[in-house]
């Protein structure tokens, strides 16, 4: 039988599995906004936020929800070359494979798109779009101008670079959805819900406000960082549970363990 801390640890393995999705007020609002943007006659929608704010899981969820209703495609990893990108787009639009030695004629592709305007509506979700170069982004913009293909572009927001200000986004993006780090209340709900979803109510109860405040302080409310920290916390608990149970208070997670996990991950230094 698995140790309860081992189960708890594995719950926080970072993944974009839709079944792991935890509904929170803010993420629910972002989801609804994205859903309504898809229904509007917009050409491009920008979804942005710091890494670990839940962009990928949101795109995954919307793909999952709408895949039976709309022609929706999710590009989770950016294409390494323009050739590869247009091969994928060609396959979506024509439902045919392009020979590997052939290249897409971009002008013809745009004309082809214009041809089915009003008959088909294709939605392409581009994750990690900061990896695409400006030239490719411009071509994506031209494709979206055909009004037959709508792009949802997901980008990282970095401290030193305001992406919305980038030239090709400033004039083209008509709807912007920003995902932010969670506040203390949201992060607490996220952690408790994750544990309760797997019936680990005793572990969930052992996490007191003091622990959660500390976790929020170290991770700044970032879900990915929170997952990492929670994983390490339960890894330490698992060790003590098996080797040195005297050091573990089962009704109240010792602050020392949270601090040890933070030390391990470099949030604080000895």
């Amino acid at each position, binding site marked *: 039988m698995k140790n309860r801390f081992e189960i708890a640890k594995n719950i926080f393995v970072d993944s974009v599995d839709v079944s792991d999705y935890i509904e929170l007020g803010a993420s629910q609002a972002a989801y609804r906004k994205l859903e309504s943007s898809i229904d509007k006659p917009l050409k491009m929608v920008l979804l942005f936020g710091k890494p670990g704010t839940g962009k990928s899981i949101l795109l995954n969820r919307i793909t999952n929800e709408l895949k039976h209703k709309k022609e929706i495609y999710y590009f989770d990893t950016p294409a390494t070359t323009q050739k590869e990108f247009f091969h994928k787009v060609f396959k979506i639009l024509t439902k045919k494979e392009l020979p590997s030695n052939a290249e897409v004629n971009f002008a013809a592709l745009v004309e082809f798109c214009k041809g089915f305007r009003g008959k088909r509506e294709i939605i392409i979700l581009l994750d990690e779009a900061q990896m695409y170069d400006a030239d490719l982004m411009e071509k994506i913009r031209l494709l979206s101008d055909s009004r037959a293909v709508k792009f949802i572009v997901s980008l990282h927001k970095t401290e030193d670079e305001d992406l919305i200000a980038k030239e090709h986004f400033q004039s083209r993006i008509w709807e912007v959805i920003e995902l932010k780090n969670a506040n203390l209340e949201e992060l607490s*709900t996220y952690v408790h*819900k994750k544990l*309760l*979803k797997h*019936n680990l*109510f*005793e572990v969930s*109860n*052992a996490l007191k406000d003091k622990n959660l405040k500390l976790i929020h302080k170290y991770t700044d409310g970032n879900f990915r960082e929170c997952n990492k920290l929670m994983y*390490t916390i339960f*890894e*330490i608990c698992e*060790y*003590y549970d098996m*080797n040195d*149970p*005297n*050091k*573990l*208070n*089962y*009704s109240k997670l010792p602050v*020392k363990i949270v*601090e*040890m996990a933070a*030390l*391990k991950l470099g949030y*604080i*230094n*000895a």
Partner: protein
Amino acid sequence: MLDIKELEQQWKQYNNKRKRPLYIMGFLGLLIVSGSIFVVNKNFDFNKINIDNFSNLLSVKNEQKSIETKPVIVKSKNDYLLNNYLKDMILLTKPKTVESTNSLTPLDDEDLYIEKDISKPVINKKKISIIKVSNNNAYRDVERRFRRTHNINDSIFLANMYYKRKNYKKAIYWSMQTNKLDKNIEESWLIFAKSKVKLGHKNEAIRVLKAYIKRSNSYEARKLLKKIINN
């Protein structure tokens, strides 16, 4: 794999580093207090003071007992006035000695000391208590949290758990709490009906299930209803 020993070592270092400013502040505070006491004592002229002043000084000394560790030695032993002061002082600190001595009798060296209690402070060591939470306690915690947050996950969880533990009255209560928040949670309707059957209120369970089926046409509810009617 985690190297817990090394991590514990790192945590000790971190903890010491975190407490260092407190130690420094405490030490500085101690230094300032003992310095000011030293200055007060140094400037003190026994020939110029009257009894009232001395008693003031005594009260100050009593308050600072825990900080001052050096005994106060009075040098002008033969001074009559000083002996009177000392008598007053010893009356406060050593009443028994004063009873047996005349106020004008010169005092021994030992009598010139104010006894200070410099025994070590008692440190309350925190014990690590290992209490395994019983399920009941954990449920109560979830109940308390529900009253605070009104989270449906908690109430449906409690309804489920109480049903499994055969506490049908509580299962009914928590399924009703869930139902108050959201009437579309099928699980709460089913637990309610099953608990009612267990408590012998079969007709009520059938009535509730029929109402729910009319509302949702749920397959699970129909299945349960059939099962209740057949049994």
